[in-house]
C-alpha cells in the first residue's frame, strides 16, 4: 500500500499535517503503526487506539479508528478497561517515555504482569517533549535537559528489561531509523496473544536534540544507525564491542495465558458453575 493510500485509509486526513515539529520521529512511528495494522489485516472498526498525554500521545487524534486520548500516564489503565469490557476489540496503546515510564510506570508493569492482550508502542524520545524538554526516566545519564541543567544524574531504565521482568510476553525494541523492521515488530506484537511491548527509539530534535548537541533530526537518526545492534548480531559481539550500543529486535517472546481469555474460561465459567 502506498503512503497515500495508507494515509487515506488510516488517517483522519483533515487533521493533517500534524502538529509535530519538523524531523520529529512521532510521524515515522505513527506511520509504522498504520502500516503494521494494515499488514496485520486488522478490522478497522474493531480496533481502539489509546494514548496518554504528550507529543506522542497526540497520535490517536490523527488515526481513523476509535481513539482515546486519556490523562497523563493512564493509557494502560483505560486500555485495560476497554479490553476487559470487550475482548473482541484490538487495543493498541501509543505512549511516550514519560507517559508510560514516569507517571505511568505502575500501570505498565501491572498490565505486563496480567499479560492482557494489549499492543503497546512507546515513542521513546528520551525527553518530555510536550512540556518543553525535561528529562525522563529514559533520558540517558549525563544528558542535558531543562530540569537537568548540570546534566542528569538519574540512571535510566532499560524499559524492555523492566517489562519482561514484570511479565510482558512479547518485548521488542526498534528505532525510527530501522523503519521496516519496526513495522514487522509491531505486526508481531499485534499478532501476539498477550501483552506486547515495542519500545521505539525516536528523535525529538526540538528539545533532546538541541540540548544534547544533535543539530538536526538527521544527526539523531545517524546516531541510531550507529548505535543500534540487532539482537542476532549482538550475540556474536564482545561486551567491549557492545559498550555504548543498544539492542534492537525481538528481545523476548513467550506464550502464556492471556488475561481476558482466562477471565472468560476460569472466572466466568466457575461462577456459572460450568467448571470448578
Amino acid at each position, binding site marked *: 500500500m*502506498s*503512503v497515500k493510500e495508507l494515509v487515506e485509509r488510516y488517517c483522519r486526513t483533515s487533521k*493533517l499535517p500534524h502538529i509535530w*515539529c*519538523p524531523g520529529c*520521529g512521532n510521524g515515522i512511528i505513527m506511520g509504522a503503526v498504520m502500516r503494521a495494522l494494515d499488514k496485520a489485516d486488522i478490522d478497522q472498526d474493531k480496533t481502539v487506539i489509546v494514548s496518554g498525554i504528550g507529543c506522542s500521545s497526540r497520535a490517536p487524534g490523527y488515526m481513523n479508528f476509535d481513539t482515546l486520548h486519556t490523562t497523563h500516564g493512564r493509557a494502560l489503565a483505560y486500555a485495560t478497561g476497554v479490553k476487559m469490557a470487550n475482548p473482541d476489540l484490538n487495543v493498541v496503546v501509543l505512549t511516550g517515555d514519560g507517559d508510560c515510564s514516569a507517571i505511568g510506570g505502575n500501570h505498565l508493569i501491572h498490565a505486563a504482569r496480567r499479560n492482557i492482550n494489549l499492543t503497546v508502542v512507546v515513542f521513546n524520545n528520551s525527553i518530555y517533549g510536550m512540556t518543553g524538554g525535561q528529562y525522563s526516566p529514559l533520558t540517558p545519564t549525563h544528558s542535558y535537559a531543562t530540569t537537568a541543567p548540570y546534566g542528569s544524574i538519574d540512571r535510566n531504565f532499560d524499559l524492555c528489561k523492566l517489562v519482561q521482568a514484570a511479565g510482558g510476553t512479547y518485548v521488542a525494541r526498534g528505532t525510527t531509523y530501522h523503519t*521496516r523492521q519496526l*513495522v514487522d515488530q509491531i505486526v508481531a506484537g499485534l499478532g501476539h496473544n498477550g501483552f506486547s511491548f515495542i519500545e521505539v527509539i525516536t528523535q525529538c530534535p526540538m528539545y533532546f536534540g538541541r540540548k544534547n548537541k544533535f543539530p538536526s533530526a538527521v544527526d539523531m537518526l545517524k546516531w541510531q544507525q550507529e548505535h543500534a545492534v540487532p539482537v542476532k548480531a549482538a550475540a556474536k559481539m564482545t561486551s567491549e564491542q557492545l559498550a555504548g550500543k543498544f539492542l534492537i529486535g525481538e528481545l523476548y517472546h513467550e506464550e502464556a495465558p492471556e488475561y481476558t481469555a482466562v477471565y472468560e474460561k476460569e472466572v466466568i465459567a466457575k461462577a456459572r458453575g460450568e467448571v470448578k
Partner: protein
Amino acid sequence: MNSEVAHIDINEKWCKGCGICIAFCPAKVLVAREDGKAAVANIEACTRCGLCELRCPDYAISVGGKQHASTN
C-alpha cells in the same frame, strides 16, 4: 539497477523540510530546496527502495512506479 524509472511525489504542503529522506536515500536521489523542503534531483538513480517514504515523518513523499524493491 532498476529497469523502470520511478516516480517520486513530494507533497510540498506537508513536507517540513526535515531532510531525513534526503540524508538517507541510498541512491542520493533527493536534494533540499532553498526552503529546506525535499526535491527530486536524480530520479534515474532511484531504486524504489521506499525508505524515503517509510521514514518521512510527514507522509509527504511517496514513491510511485512499480512495487518497492525489497530491501533488508
